[in-house]
């Protein structure tokens, strides 16, 4: 009973709260990083150095009027943000935040579930979010959201292919679809897959930027062109759900990158003798640090690069990333077969 129900429930609550709080503070971090790059200070008014800004933001979104356009399809209009948010959050179910720890003599693995098709689950769940975006764009019954929704559906589908192909090469390298096994395979190999699969990492990261609609691929919400893209007509809490989903997706992409390419919860430099002390830091801390480093690159890129145009983005996806990913899969497979002989 305890093993089956209570512990998983507690874990789910912890992960959920953790994700939501991280999202809140990721927004602050983003604003701060952007500000520092742009010789500004960022939020400074709410709390010292703006640390309470996220709370103020959430409060504002709560008390805002939630407008539904008269000619919108009300049911779909309400459903769309939920469809976007839920997959972003349930993807965390298979992310291994750490290895098994013992609490009161009871071994507790630091992940909600370790299913043997973990990676497939991530891909599957991540694709559901697209529906929400298309539905949001369509149900608003307005031109800008419609264009924004169409753009993002095309974008997400094309980049998902490339991203999924990079997963294939990682699976070839690790020999497993389970997220936990992928991490342990990296420990057994003695080297993170970032160094074994640099091309995969590159394609995955670019694809990840595109899939989370981040700069330089933030076309669906190119405010200079399509006002606010698919969520132009949304306000209040329903808008907050989109916002939450975007950042939750960023965290998913970073967490998956950490798991697949940066050794998950493993401490760095296990072979360097005098750095072995790093191994005493709890694994989940390494996981958090690595995830935030990846997230930082997201923010850094946003502050640096201009935005791609729609057709250029498609060209990059189909003509560069996907062939690159396919070639990488083939090379990985050939090398793997050659090594096994």
């Amino acid at each position, binding site marked *: 009973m305890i093993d089956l129900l209570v512990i998983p429930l507690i874990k789910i609550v912890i992960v959920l709260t953790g994700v939501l709080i991280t999202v809140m503070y990721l927004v602050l971090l983003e604003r701060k990083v952007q500000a520092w790059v*742009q010789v500004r200070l960022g939020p400074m008014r709410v709390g010292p150095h703006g640390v309470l800004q996220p709370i103020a933001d959430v409060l504002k979104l709560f008390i805002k009027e939630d407008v539904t356009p008269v000619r919108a399809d009300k049911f779909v209009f309400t459903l769309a943000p939920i469809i976007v948010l839920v997959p972003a959050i349930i993807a965390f179910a298979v992310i291994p935040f750490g290895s098994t720890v013992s609490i009161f003599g009871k071994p507790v693995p630091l992940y909600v579930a370790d299913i043997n098709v973990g990676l497939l689950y991530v891909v599957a769940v991540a694709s559901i979010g697209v529906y929400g975006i298309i539905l949001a764009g369509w149900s608003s019954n307005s031109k800008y959201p419609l*264009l924004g929704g169409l753009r993002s559906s095309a974008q997400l589908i094309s980049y998902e292919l490339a991203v999924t192909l990079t997963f294939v090469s990682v699976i070839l390298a690790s020999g497993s679809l389970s997220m936990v096994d992928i991490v342990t395979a990296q420990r057994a190999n003695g080297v993170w897959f970032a160094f074994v699969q640099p091309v995969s990492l590159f394609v995955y990261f670019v694809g990840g930027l595109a899939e989370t609609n981040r*700069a330089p691929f*933030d076309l669906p919400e190119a405010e200079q*062109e*399509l*006002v606010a893209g698919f969520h132009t007509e949304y306000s209040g809490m329903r808008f907050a759900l989109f916002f939450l989903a975007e950042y939750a997706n960023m965290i998913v992409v970073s967490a998956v990158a950490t798991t697949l390419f940066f050794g998950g919860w493993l401490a760095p430099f296990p072979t360097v003798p005098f750095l072995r002390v790093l191994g005493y830091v709890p694994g989940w801390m390494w996981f958090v640090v690595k995830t935030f480093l990846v997230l930082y690159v997201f923010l850094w890129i946003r502050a640096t690069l*201009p*935005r791609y145009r729609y057709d250029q983005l498609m060209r990059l996806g189909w003509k560069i990333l996907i062939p690159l990913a396919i070639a990488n899969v083939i090379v990985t497979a050939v090398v793997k077969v050659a090594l096994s002989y």
Partner: protein
Amino acid sequence: MEPDVARQMFDTDELVINMGPQHPATHGVLRVVLKLDGEKVVDADVVIGYLHRGVEKLSENRDFTQIVLLTDRLDYVASAAANLAYVETVEKLLSLEVPRRAKYLRTILAELQRLASHLVWLGSHAMDIGAVTVFLYCLRERELILDLFEEFCGARLTYNSMRIGGLPQDLPPGWDRKALQFCDIQIEKLAEYETLLTHNRIWLERTRNIGVISAADAVAVGLCGPPLRGSGVARDVRKDEPYAAYAEMEFDVPVGTRGDTYDRYLVRLEEMRQSVRIIRQAIGGLPEGPVMGKVPRLIKPPAGETYHANESPKGELGFFIASDGKSTSPYRLRVRPPSFCNLQALPRLVRGHLVADVIALIGTIDIVLGEVDR
């Protein structure tokens, strides 16, 4: 399948989109009615007039001296340029002699203004294409220019910085040194913007071969200023019909080769370098003397009319003034605003491009609606 057959089989409709007047990227209250085929722009119709304040008509009821501050409100990111063009036109009408020091100072102010205007242009153009950081970097340097103007004439946006016959006052002490310091900073920071943009693949893809206009077409459509020079026509009023102290300055007129958005970007960046060069020369050779010439107490030009043009940051800014010889205000005042003339080219530039390019193209012709609508 033939395109016509396809059109018959699948019922396609052009989507009409109103971009503006309340749109974050139309640089004010410009309205562009776009006809879209998918994301492709079939046609564009520019609707202006949302910021019309009747400056030309108002001028007919103002003294010649009062009109200077109306010119502030034309191109409000480059008001000193409009001040200069107007006062020089009136001086031409009155055949007034302006002291040499005033001419030099006007040149310095006009070039600082050009830098400020180009900084706003670069910042907003880059931001439209998604590079937000460049915008803040540009405004950081513009701030220094505004500080210089504030020290000179007390205002930061609408300067009212010129007078008929000269300048309202001489430079405050130490101003020239600060301006030179600013020049050094600006040159250094220009390199910084270029690091972010000039060789950036995304920037290149977004601006290369976008909105190409040939030299002949550019002349035919009436382009002026940097967009004209971007197409390879070396027309610069400062060189061709020198005013203020430009005849004594050494500077180059950069021209583009392809006439695309990237060339116009390069031309403006090079113009900023040339502006710094002019400011340094003018401060170096600044003559002593008064800054105000002999001006009659009541400005009442003889009957007649005149036209005089300046190279404002946006292009050729001209004033036409007709005087009936009896009144202290113009019988008719007409502004030839460069933004307005350049905006004419927009439908031609955007045809066949994508929606995202419309934004880049509105940015590249550098309009200010205050000047377009007057």
